[in-house]
Structure formats: structure tokens, C-alpha cells
């Protein structure tokens, strides 16, 4: 749906003066929003007993797809396929390095988002998919680092990611201490 809107706006010249930047940034932001929603599925279930786990895989894949399109838009429209400059930029610019690393971390997650892999990997599948946590942090840094000044919305999104991760951390600590108490 966000993609359809974006394509519509592009075709009808509704993107404003710099369509390249609009396309690239909108794709990136959409990827981030889907990532946040994906991360929110478990906390929402734990806190409000609303179970959306069956949607989680689709949400994660949507996030990945938008991240992929964001990367393509950067390479084609923004950088004009200047491979050498792209490579040296990725190595030299922390925000590009953060973004690229996050994307690479998400690749195996997207690839193993099918029943066959889940069955095959068993317990390891859960471990592997914890890569979404570092990826989420890197994605926030990628956005914040790309800006010249601190600004509200990206900070709010980063805050949401941190809150969702902290919630998990607290839960797992609570789980550990429960275990500890029982063992005594």
C-alpha cells in the first residue's frame, strides 16, 4: 500500500522538487515503520494479550522488501550506479555502514522466513532471528547519523525501538530471576 502510493505519486509528479530524495527517504522510513511494528508484536501480546504473531512474518518480510527497495533507490537514482564511490562511501561513512550492516543482518532472516527453514533450523531458527535486535539498533543509528541536526521524529522512532528492546530485556531478566528464585 505505501509502495502503491509512492508509485502513484511518482507517476503523477506529486513528489515535489527532488523526487529522488523523496522516493529514497519514503522507502527507508516505511521499512523502519514495518520493522518497529514487527518488533512490537511480542510486547503487545505480552502486555495487552493481543496476539498478532501470525502477522509477524509478513510484517518482517515487508520491512525487508522496503529496505531492499530503499537500497536500490539509493544505488540507481541517488548514486547513479557509481560503484566505486558507493563502495568507498559505505566504508567511510558510519551511517551508510550502519545501514548496510543492518541490511546484511536482515538477509538471512528474510531467507529463512519459510516453513521449511523453520522446521530445518529448529531451535537455531529462534537464535538466528534475534539478529533483528542489532539490526533495529543499526537502522536507528543509520537514520540519526544521516541528519545534520537532531530532529524529533527520527528520535521518537529510535525511542520506540529502544523501548521495545528494553521491554524484552526486562522480561527476560524477570524470567531469569524467577528461575533463580525457584532454584533456591
Amino acid at each position, binding site marked *: 500500500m505505501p509502495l502503491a502510493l509512492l508509485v502513484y505519486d*511518482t507517476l503523477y509528479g506529486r513528489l*515535489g*522538487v*527532488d*523526487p*529522488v*530524495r523523496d*522516493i529514497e527517504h519514503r522507502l527507508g522510513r516505511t521499512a523502519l515503520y514495518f520493522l518497529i511494528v514487527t518488533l512490537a508484536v511480542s510486547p503487545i501480546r505480552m502486555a495487552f494479550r493481543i496476539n498478532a504473531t501470525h502477522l509477524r512474518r509478513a510484517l518482517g518480510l515487508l520491512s525487508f522488501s522496503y529496505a531492499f527497495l530503499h537500497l536500490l533507490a539509493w544505488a*540507481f*537514482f*541517488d*548514486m*547513479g*550506479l*557509481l560503484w566505486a*564511490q558507493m563502495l*568507498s*562511501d559505505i566504508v*567511510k*561513512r*558510519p*551511517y551508510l555502514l550502519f545501514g548496510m550492516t543492518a541490511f546484511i543482518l536482515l538477509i538471512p532472516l528474510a531467507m529463512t522466513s519459510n516453513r521449511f527453514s523453520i522446521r530445518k533450523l529448529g531451535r537455531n531458527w529462534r537464535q538466528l532471528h534475534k539478529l533483528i535486535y542489532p539490526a533495529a539498533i543499526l537502522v536507528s543509528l543509520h537514520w540519526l*547519523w*544521516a541528519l*545534520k*541536526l*537532531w*530532529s524529533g521524529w527520527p528520535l521518537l522512532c529510535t525511542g520506540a525501538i529502544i523501548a521495545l528492546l528494553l521491554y524484552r530485556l526486562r522480561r527476560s531478566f524477570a524470567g531469569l530471576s524467577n528461575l533463580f528464585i525457584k532454584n533456591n
Partner: protein
Amino acid sequence: MKLGWSDVTPEAVWLNRRAFMAGATALAATPAFALSGSPSAFSTDEEPNSFEEITNYNNFYEFGFGKEDPARNAGALTTDPWSVEIGGMVDRPGSYGVDDLAPEAALEERIYRLRCVEAWSMVIPWLGVPLAGVLNKVGVQPGAKFVAFETVLRPEEMVAQRGGGIDWPYREGLRLDEAMHPLTILATGLYDKPMPNQNGAPIRLVVPWKYGFKSIKSVVKITLTDKQPATSWQSLQPSEYGFYANVNPQVDHPRWSQATERRIGAGLLGGRQETLMFNGYADQVAGMYQGMDLAQNY
């Protein structure tokens, strides 16, 4: 022969319009009057960006951090009356009106490339006067070495000044020889229109061989000094923004390469073009930086 924007309209129509506009201005001092400037040898023959592009995509952080924010929010700025306080090491300090500094009859059209530090660029047909003429008029004293500029501080009209981010008012500065360079102008219009608010009305600086942020907008204060003045971006992030801010493809911004740029309006598959040393004005300005390490003095 260099074509000016006046050549786009047939001359007869153009003269008629001028006569009409002159009459109209005399009748009612409407703020939307047309301006014109004599053509200049300093103009580039590259195709200028459209008025639409120039006025809807720019940075003017006083009105917000987004590129569309200035066009959206700058309407609230009162630009008339306006005065510029010129002081410091000058013979005739005082408060000058926009017409004193840049009388309409003296306006030149300068079609300049503009390179933003964010690696995008445009071509803009400014109307303005050389800053050197203004400084000569007020009489620069021998000890002066730098020129400091300040943007108006008016939080009630400039939304982003109510918040943090930058220590308002916005400040910029030039070395005296840079300020006196014939390429450096005070602009009061673009195309044949008075300067739109979002582009720095009513009077702004344009220094085409430096990154856009050096060309301070809506100027209210010009001070001649013997010390290098503090500038807003340099104070905020000295590792990223130096005092000189000369366009230089060899010196990267810490967070992105400056080797290439994206020309606004080039379209989706416009790709990138190489950034030129001093934004293509090296022949005219390189001499001022001889013997300086531009990686140190960025």
C-alpha cells in the same frame, strides 16, 4: 552572446511590460513588482533551475529543517521595512535600507551555480549588487580583516527560532578579500522578482564558490572586524563545517563524499555529476587560497 532572461520575451512585449509595471508601481507600491538586472560576464550559461524548484527546495533553518519548510513557513516574515546595521571597523557605520545598499538601477543579473554541502546543486539567476561596492561605500578601515554577517532574529515570525538546534541568530563570515571579490554579491531578487522570503528576503549574501550555507539569508547586520568571526555551523559541529567551506571535491564531508553532486531537476535517472573545484569558479578565486592547506582550512 549571452542570453539574459529578458530575451525570452519578445522585446516589444518586454518593453511594454516594463512600462506597464513602472506605471503600476507608481500607482500602487505593490510588493509584487518586477525587477531586472543588467547581464554580467560572471554568469554561467548553464540552464537555470525553474523558479518553482528554486523557491520550493532549499534550506533556511529558521523556518524548519525540511527542504519544503521554508516555502511553507516563510510567508510570516515581514520584509518591509528592513534595515541592515553596518558597523565595526567602517568609516560610516549606520543603519541602511535595502534600497540604499542595492538600488534597483544598480542590479546585475548573476546566473550562478549553487552547491549545497549536502551534495545537491542548482543554477540560480540572482539579481544583486557586488558586496565590494557596498563595503566601499561605507568605507572599510585599514585594520579590518573579516566581515561578519547576521540573520534577523524574530522568533515570532520564524518558527524554528522558537526551538533549539542552532544558537540563533544565524551567523556567517568571510575573510575581507573574499567579501571584496567581484563574484560575491548581495542579492535582492531572483529571476525578475524580488527575493522570495524563503530564499532570504529582502537581502542576502551569495558566495558561489562556497557551500550554500555560507550565503547567509535575510541579513540585518554586517560587521567589519579584525578577528575571524564565529559562524553558526562551525560552532555547532567544527569537525564537519569549517570557516571557509569552499566547494572542494577532494575534501569529503565526514559523513559523505563531496566528489559528485546531484543536480536538482535532473530527473529520476539524471545520475550524478562531478563536483568542480571551487564549484567551477577556480579560475577566479583559487588565487585567494594559494599556500593554504584546504584540507586543514576546509
